[in-house]
């Protein structure tokens, strides 16, 4: 019987190539999309799970409100780790990581530096905590000595090869000599340290040994004892505030108590996050690697589900529409003694067969699409062909999909009444139109929803990119790691300044795009109570900063070389002025200091107020900031005149190579640096586009098939209408409007939903677009246009048939 079913199924598929193609291709596209998304999500959930005891490792977070600024920190003060180990018996071990950023590195005898972009200080307990074995070197002594470091395999191979690395010396940033104490395997691509290549010994880092409780710079990890409960650690963790932080802070704020701290509206809250939750659930002011978000995983899951649902709806619609042709067969089988359950089984076997063929096609599609998908998502996912469980899950999923998609058509068709379908060729009895129509409405509702999503994401991205940021990022060239050049840097700046293609140059590591940051608490002279604290960024810049980045002064003046006293002057931004509770004109001349609790604090006179400019993501409000005159040699920003940029860059590089031979000439445009802040949105935008197109494609395949069957079913009607004098246009209109009505209903359903969902998404941004009516109109128009194109072809084709031919079929 099974063989007979399979045979019939195969032959009936072969006899209807058009139908079979629509069905399998639609299903395969849906499956391929679903498969890729599943692999993506699987990868997202795999982060940091490879570390031994990952389920017992937690990071300490700190949420801080102080001096008018709110910070969601992922780091705590240096002494915290040791205090936790001492005070909490349920803690097996603690380790700290301090991000060091980029580093120039070379063998002492080598001339040229290479750049390691992600370097961190780590405690020697690091390896034991994360269960990392050294490829060479001794795990118990590694990083215990000052001025030692551990390289990853990749970094070691760059300089010495793995076997020769141990004991070798490396010169960091041209100044510090470090000895290689070991080599570890590269960090997995799905780990929180994936981009890090060099770990330096915390042991020799002075800052790490200081009791600086409120300098939150240390990622602090704890590992619980196996039997310990995180809740028992989490609750008393807050006691650290009174035990350590307050006594420390009282040096600067005599008499400050937990009550007065809380009464002023400030807070410092400690919490923990599981290591394995960091990738998807942590989005804090600094992270060791860029994290993803669970929200994106949800969005993608929904899109994946939608895709498969769309494909399976297609299957149902096409199959029930197609049942016109199968009705006779059902009737015959019933008269010959088949009962309903046998027919259901037969149709389910048929849908199972289609699912299976689609699976093969889907795997092919996924394989072809994988490189593009990886590019799109920034991952390096592979299809785990050799994994037994992968196949098991896949086969179960496909069987389920076959059953799910096949069930409605199977029950639908097996219900045909033999007497009726055999008599009238089945036409009159085959209904199911209402359900079919609802399914089409559902499909298009999803498509319109995704169109709205795509339009809004892209509009928001465009808004971000074209927003007045308060500074001009266009035509600004950034040269990084300029500190390596040492004292020749000012001469280099001078020379570049002389170039005809350059309009202005500034030398500082503090850029509005991702770069150095430094914040501190400041006070207006004579107001040193904690509730008057002004927590703000303090950036060290030179005289040319404002002009190079085209920032606007709204009060006062820029730093000026004619005033030597400007070395103790500051320019505040609007947010800082607002925090002081003053108007921009009134703030000029007042003095502020960051040296609270010191004997002879240095005071800075406010000489100007700069218009607010964005220096963090547009998701955040603009924080308080002060500019101070001084020398910061992290980077050069060069404003180029319009014209031939590559020529200008060539000239700048020539100067660089002449003045700083052997030093890396590391440049990029500020525009690109700016865009890195929005990579997540850009990724999301691209993914939206791809899957929206896919879902529309699937919906169109279904609509195309339905239109074809509809036209076929109405052949006689069309013939009669034509005999009675209807034109091709009238008939086409008639056939097309039926479907357009469905699309119209879909649009009505999805417009409010799409508007609501995307408004929610936009809430994450402090600076965002309004969703205009035209976005909704455009989405509706696109859906309508696509539907007309899809259905129109079939309609015109059907309407053009010679009526003699269409009437003869009866």
């Amino acid at each position: 019987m099974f063989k007979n079913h399979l045979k019939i199924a195969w032959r009936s598929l072969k006899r209807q190539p058009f139908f079979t193609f629509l069905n399998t291709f639609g299903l395969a596209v849906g499956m391929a999309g679903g498969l890729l998304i599943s692999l993506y999500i699987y990868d997202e959930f795999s982060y940091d799970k490879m570390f031994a005891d990952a389920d017992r490792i937690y990071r300490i977070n700190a949420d801080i409100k102080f001096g008018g600024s709110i910070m969601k920190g992922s780091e705590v003060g240096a002494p915290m780790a040791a205090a936790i180990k001492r005070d909490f018996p349920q803690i097996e071990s603690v380790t700290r990581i301090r991000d060091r950023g980029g580093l120039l590195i070379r063998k002492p005898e080598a001339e040229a530096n290479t750049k390691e972009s992600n370097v961190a200080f780590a405690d020697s307990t690091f390896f034991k905590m994360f269960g990392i074995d050294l490829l060479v070197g001794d795990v118990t002594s590694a990083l215990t000595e000052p001025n030692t470091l551990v390289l990853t395999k990749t970094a070691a191979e760059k300089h010495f090869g793995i076997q020769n690395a141990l004991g070798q010396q490396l010169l960091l940033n041209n100044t510090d000599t470090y000895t290689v104490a070991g080599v570890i395997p590269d960090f997995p691509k799905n780990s929180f340290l994936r981009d890090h290549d060099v770990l330096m010994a915390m042991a020799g880092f002075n800052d790490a040994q200081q009791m600086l409780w409120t300098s939150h710079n240390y990622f602090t990890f704890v590992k619980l004892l196996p039997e310990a409960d995180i809740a028992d650690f989490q609750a008393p963790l807050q006691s650290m505030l009174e035990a350590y932080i307050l006594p420390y802070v009282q040096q600067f704020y005599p008499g400050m108590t937990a009550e007065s701290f809380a009464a002023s509206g400030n807070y410092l809250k400690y919490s923990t996050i599981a290591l394995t939750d960091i990738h998807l659930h942590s989005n804090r002011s600094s992270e060791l690697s860029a994290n993803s978000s669970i929200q994106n995983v949800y969005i993608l899951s929904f899109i994946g589900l939608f895709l498969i649902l769309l494909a399976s709806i297609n299957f149902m619609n096409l199959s029930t529409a197609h049942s016109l042709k199968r009705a006779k067969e059902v009737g015959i089988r019933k008269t010959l003694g088949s009962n309903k359950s046998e027919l259901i089984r037969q149709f389910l076997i048929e849908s199972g067969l289609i699912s299976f063929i689609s699976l093969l096609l889907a795997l092919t599609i996924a394989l072809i699409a994988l490189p593009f998908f990886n590019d799109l998502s920034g991952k390096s996912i592979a299809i785990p062909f050799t994994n037994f469980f992968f196949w098991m899950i896949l086969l179960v999923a496909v069987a389920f999909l076959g059953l799910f998609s096949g069930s409605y058509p199977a029950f639908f068709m097996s219900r045909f009444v033999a007497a009726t379908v055999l008599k009238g060729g089945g036409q009159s009895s085959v209904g199911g139109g209402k359900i079919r129509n609802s399914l089409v409405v559902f499909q298009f509702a999803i498509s319109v929803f995704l169109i709205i999503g795509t339009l809004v994401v892209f509009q928001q991205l465009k808004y971000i990119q074209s927003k007045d940021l308060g500074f001009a990022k266009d035509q600004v060239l950034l040269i990084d790691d300029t500190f390596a050049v040492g004292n020749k840097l000012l001469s280099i700046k001078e020379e570049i300044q002389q170039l005809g293609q350059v309009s202005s140059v500034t030398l500082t590591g503090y850029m509005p795009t991702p770069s150095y940051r430094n914040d501190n608490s400041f006070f207006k002279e004579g107001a040193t109570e904690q509730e008057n604290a002004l927590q703000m960024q303090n950036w060290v810049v030179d005289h040319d900063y404002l002009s190079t980045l085209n920032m606007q002064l709204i009060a006062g003046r820029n730093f000026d070389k004619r005033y030597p006293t400007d070395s103790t002057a500051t320019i505040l931004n609007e947010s800082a002025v607002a925090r002081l509770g003053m108007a921009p004109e009134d703030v000029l001349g007042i003095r502020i200091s960051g040296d609270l609790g010191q004997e002879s604090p240095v005071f800075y006179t406010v000489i100007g107020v700069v218009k607010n400019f964005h220096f963090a993501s547009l998701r955040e409000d603009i924080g308080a900031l002060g500019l101070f005159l001084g020398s910061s040699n992290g980077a050069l920003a060069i404003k180029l005149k319009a014209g031939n940029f590559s020529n200008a860059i060539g000239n700048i590089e020539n100067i660089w190579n002449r003045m700083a031979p052997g030093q890396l000439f590391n440049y990029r445009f500020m525009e690109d640096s700016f865009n890195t802040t929005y990579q997540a949105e850009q990724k999301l935008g691209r993914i939206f586009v791809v899957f929206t197109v896919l879902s529309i494609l699937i919906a169109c395949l279904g609509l195309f098939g339905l239109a074809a069957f509809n036209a076929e079913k109405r052949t006689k009607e069309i013939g009669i209408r034509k005999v009675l004098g209807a034109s091709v246009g009238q008939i086409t209109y008639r056939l097309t409007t039926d479907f357009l009505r469905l699309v119209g209903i879909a649009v009505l359903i999805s417009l409010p939903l799409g508007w609501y969902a995307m408004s929610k998404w936009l809430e994450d941004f402090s600076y965002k677009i309004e969703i205009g009516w035209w976005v909704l109109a455009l989405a509706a128009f696109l859906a309508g246009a696509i539907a007309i194109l899809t259905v129109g072809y079939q309609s015109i084709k059907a309407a053009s048939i010679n009526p003699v031919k269409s009437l003869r079929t009866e």
Partner: protein
Amino acid sequence: MIQIQNLKKSFRTEEVETLALNNVNMNIAEGEFAAIMGPSGCGKSTLLNIIGMLDNPTEGSYQFAGHEVGGLKERQRTQLRKGNLGFVFQSFNLIDELTVYENVELPLIYLKMNKTERREKVKSVLERMKIAHREKHFPQQLSGGQQQRVAISRAVVTNPKLILADEPTGNLDSKNGIEVMNLLTELNQEGTTIVMVTHSDRDSHYAHRVINLFDGQIVTESQNRAMGAML
């Protein structure tokens, strides 16, 4: 074999109730060859469908070989139909996706007969119907007469007690039509009961008895004394 008493069948659309069969009483004995005639819409096919257990009567009683059929569930009707009834249609109603052999084999599969037995039966019936040389062909590759021979093969392969034929020659030319009628007569002479709906006076003469239906009621019944007189 067939006892029908006060049978009524009505169809209901949204507004109108149509009475297709009204107080039909008839008996058909085992071994009989009966023809049901009447103009279009008189209820012939409805009656045949009820006799064939494809449809239930609205009222009245229908006994098949002693079993009351009216009111049975679809599953029970299917059970009773299997092996007892064979159908021959005007439009042949062969499954296009199956070969001649497979079409004929199908009712045996539903009877859960084993493969060897099936092959034997199908082969012999195909040979008898002189269509064995076409067993690997699909229905569309055959002429109308050949298709109807396949359909008859399929109807008789289970050795049914009753064959129901709904205008079996309606789509055939006269030569093929006569051939089909001769086959049915032959089957009847071997003991199979046949009930046939027809428009054709010629075909009706093959039957022992002609039942004339008009507006859902039996109006006349006549015996054909000279069986096969038109040959």
